[in-house]
């Protein structure tokens, strides 16, 4: 499929989606959000895809909503509010849901500024690696008087803790990649030149993994945010029952017994 605003490439089971509006720091135009959502869903349906890698073209990762495109089209505040809510229902929230629900590992390689919804997009991925020159910024509240959206208000306190989440969201201070890694918001901060090699290498390892089991693992961790221990133990039992029927589990056990490296097929 031809895309205008993203670039799609496949290698070794890794599907790389590159946000490709470098002249706008990859801001989330409606077209981009639509294309990205479709691409994430397509990656979910395609069994040959076993890891999703998300990155940005040019010097930015993603500048968040494109205010130039649709920020203030209505004069009537009530209609403006309704329109934004409708856009979120139709466009932005389906993207975050698609990304969060993908039953395959997702990796964000944050190559530059991740602002507003761009930060949300990174946090919606399972593993985030950022270049040393990249930074994260919550522009919603202090600069616009808006609520952190695209999941930021959900992800941020969970990864950063309440104090740091509120600090970041209320002040809009830039958070360097290095600090983000120290605080545990992201997996790792690497030198700029190392970002793509590191991300590609990690994505390749994830893509060679027991994909279905990794998907169940994600479901277990996500449900754990809401479950009490008793419900979570039951869920672990259920998902283990499913995961232990995969061919990859059999291969893992055999490889362990034969003292060799497992060769997983994602089945």
């Amino acid at each position, binding site marked *: 499929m031809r895309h205008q605003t993203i670039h799609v490439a496949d290698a070794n089971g890794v599907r790389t989606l590159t946000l490709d509006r470098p002249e706008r720091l990859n801001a989330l135009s409606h077209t981009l959000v639509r294309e990205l959502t479709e691409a994430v869903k397509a990656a979910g349906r395609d069994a040959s895809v076993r890891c999703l890698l998300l990155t940005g073209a040019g010097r930015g990762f993603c500048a968040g909503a494109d205010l130039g495109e649709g920020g203030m089209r209505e004069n009537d505040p009530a209609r403006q509010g309704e329109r934004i809510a409708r856009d979120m229902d139709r466009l932005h929230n389906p993207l975050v849901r698609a990304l969060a629900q993908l039953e395959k590992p997702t990796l964000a390689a944050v190559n530059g500024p991740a602002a507003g919804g761009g930060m949300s997009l990174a946090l919606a991925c399972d593993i985030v690696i950022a270049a040393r020159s990249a930074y994260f910024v919550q522009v919603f509240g202090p600069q616009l008087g808006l609520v952190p959206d695209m999941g930021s208000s959900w992800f941020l306190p969970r990864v950063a803790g309440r104090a740091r989440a509120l600090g970041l969201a209320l002040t809009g201070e830039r958070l360097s990649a290095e600090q983000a890694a120290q605080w545990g918001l992201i997996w790792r901060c690497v030198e700029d030149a190392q970002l793509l090699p590191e991300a590609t290498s990690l994505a390749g390892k994830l893509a060679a993994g027991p994909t279905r089991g990794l998907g169940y693992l994600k*479901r277990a961790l996500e449900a754990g945010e809401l479950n009490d221990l008793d419900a979570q133990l039951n*869920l672990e039992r*259920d*998902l283990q*029952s*499913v995961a232990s029927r995969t061919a990859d589990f059999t291969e893992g056990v055999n490889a362990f017994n034969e003292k060799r490296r497992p060769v997983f097929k994602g089945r």
Partner: protein
Amino acid sequence: MSEEPVIRITEPAPFVRLVTMNRPGALNALSGELLGALAQALDGWRHDEAVRAVVLTGGERAFAAGADIKEFPLQTPATQILEERAALFDAIGRFPKPLIAAVNGYALGGGCEVAMACDIIIAGETARFGQPEVNLGIIPGAGGTQRLPRTVGKSLAMLMCLAAEPIDAKRALSAGLVAEVTPKELTVERALAIAKAIVARPPLAVRVAKDLILRSYDTPLDAGLKLERRSNAALFGTEDKQEGVAAFIEKRPGNFKGR
């Protein structure tokens, strides 16, 4: 041309039947043919002692996504008044043995109503329940306006039927529409485990308990309690009651015959 049957029937365990609605291309839309096949199977099992519980399921994407709207242009007030289709739904509601719905994906319109006509609903975590008929200028026609408020209460039933808003599995669980939510891979397995637990128990007691619970909706409490006592008195005279008590005292599983 060999066509796939619209329902598939298997016997995954003794006394248990698994019915799988099988129109995946149409998200299991409830065509007259599908409903007819389902009604025929259930009617055939009413007096069949080899069947003690039935699990009904659909596919991964849809339990059943409502009526087959392609058949609607042929429907007139007359066909509705003749109630041929209603008779097929009634076959589900009047089936006297335990009926368990294992719901994955969409259970919309008639699909939601079929699930509600079952005794126990087990939902996969991706299940969605809704009554969107109002979008077509009609209303739920097989119990949606009657069984839904009895289960989830007035306010949520109104939201679902008037605004056509579907609810997800989590909400269905908290509203009492479903008994349990499982990972989608285990929905049928859990429903079958419940069916197996039921068929290991005395069939007459199971059947009477089901009948009384269904009657509770339209019986005054006093009369219902009286009926319950009389029914229990009758069960005290069954062979299965002797066996159940003996098995309990001897700490062994009972061997029940339905007598």
